[in-house]
């Protein structure tokens, strides 16, 4: 069997008395989209923060491509191949879409201590940036500061920045949030092609997208993984229906 790209073993995290993540073990295999679902407050974003390094786990191990990253910083983990997008768009507000992507490319290439050559004339940054923006459909908006992009465009730019990192695994926290039906469909189709580049750990509330995309689904409730399986298995699981889906369908 292939080695997992991302491997979590017994990861726990508490905020005071609140156990936000409890003994979570899960893997992300090459080529797959592994969706992480669960009601609000289940601990999905916390788990993403633990994987990306923003939070340190109280216990457990996080392994990326065979390397234990538990003690590493966010930046170190990013360099080892974790490309993340944020639930709430987190971009460089004054930088244009192009400059946001160029920053990711520069990080990928290293050399952020170069003090002489202007980035504007660095074709190893500008050319791939244009290509990546075109891939997500932002080619006409390259020069617009990210703070003046529309909400949907910022979501796409988040994806573009992750693409620029050429990561070993994508960590996408609710990429469809607030995208609208049309935007969500386009993005679903795009993520479908993306798994060929690198597997995706996908937190998503849009169940149409999850059921269309996921090879495997893990369900979180109160910080615990209560079920993992294929889309069909998860839809049929009574515990899941009770904890989450039933509630959604009833609403």
């Amino acid at each position, binding site marked *: 069997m292939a080695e997992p790209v991302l491997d979590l073993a017994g990861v726990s995290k508490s905020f005071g008395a609140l156990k936000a993540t409890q003994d979570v073990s899960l893997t992300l295999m090459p080529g797959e989209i592994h969706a992480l679902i669960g009601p609000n407050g289940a601990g999905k974003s916390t788990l993403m923060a633990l994987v990306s390094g923003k939070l340190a786990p109280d216990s457990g191990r996080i392994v990326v491509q065979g390397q234990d990253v538990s003690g590493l910083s966010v930046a170190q983990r*990013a*360099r080892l191949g974790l490309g993340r997008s944020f639930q709430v768009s987190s971009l460089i507000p004054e930088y244009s879409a192009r400059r946001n992507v160029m*920053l990711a490319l520069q990080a990928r290439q290293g050399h952020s201590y170069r003090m*002489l050559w*202007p980035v504007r004339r660095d074709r190893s940054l500008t050319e791939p940036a244009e290509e990546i923006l075109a891939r997500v459909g932002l080619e006409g908006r390259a020069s617009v500061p990210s703070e003046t992009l529309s909400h949907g465009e910022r979501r796409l730019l988040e994806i573009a920045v992750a693409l620029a990192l050429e990561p070993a695994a994508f960590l996408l926290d609710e990429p469809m949030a607030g995208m609208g039906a049309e935007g969500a469909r386009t993005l679903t189709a795009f993520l479908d092609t993306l798994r060929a580049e690198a597997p995706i750990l996908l937190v998503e509330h849009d169940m149409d997208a999850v059921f269309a995309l996921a090879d495997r689904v893990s369900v979180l409730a109160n910080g615990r993984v209560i079920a993992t399986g294929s889309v069909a298995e998860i839809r049929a699981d009574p515990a899941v229906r009770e904890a989450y889906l039933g509630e959604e369908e009833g609403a």
Partner: protein
Amino acid sequence: MDETRKEFWLNAVLLIGLFATPVIALMIDEPFYVTLSTRVAIFALAAVGLNIALGLGGMVSFGHALYFGLGGYVAGIMAHHAFSGVPMVFGLSGSDQMLVIWPVAMLLSGLIAAIVGALSLRTSGIFFIMITLAFAQMAYYFAIGWPTYGGEDGLSIFVRNQFPGLNTMQTWNMFLLAYGALVIALVLFAMLRNARFGAALMAIRQNPERVAAVGISPFGIKLAAFVISGMITGLSGAMMADLNRFVSPSMMSWHTSGQLIVICILGGVGRLFGPVAGAAVFVGFEVVFGGLTQHWQFWLGLVLLGVVLFARGGVIGIIAGRERHG
């Protein structure tokens, strides 16, 4: 006119204006204005240093007087030992050569900035402001309590330190040195800002979490910027000591740190020529209102308040609009 072009022409006017002032002053025999222009150039140089940390990196250092004073004391102490012939520490002799003093001032400032930065850059906001202030105050009280070099009374430089081929006792020549250093620092600032380093640094100011998430450690970039910033301000301190032929602990006081911040804010934080515009306004106020009233700093404070409330981009921002990053 498009705003980038406006800024270009404004910069050109400032650059030429700062040079033309002492030239005209010499022609109409008003040497006072040569000294004043030199003062503007040196304060601008100090603020270009601060502008790297404050403007590009968003690090509100309330302790840059530390590097300004350190540079000043390097010039004063080395001159003092060159004059007396008594060696300094470790048997090293003093020097009255600017080309020796300046690198020493910059290296020492860079070293101290590295220590202060390493201890303070993991904090932010008010904590960072307070730590940088605390280090500068420590140095200030240390200088006051060190009688060997004048303590509270400061230290005089009897004959200005020397520069090959120039008579530095003529203020015009001091102006040329300060102006030259300022131009070099401005070129360096522009290069840094446009290069990958600047791209990372300015991004860290806006969203450090995002920068870390793409794989660039904010701490290292900020520390490097802080060290370069301290070095440039340190150089300016050495020049100021030579201009005044005097160095005292007040160069290290929090007033001086505040003045450097005020200069950056007045001119336009993060803007290439912000420190030049800011230093001109500051020294202008000092002269015009300083002659009329003891309370000129009150009026300056009022102007500062106006800038902070109504014109956040300072002089450069008022004329050339917001900065754009392609």
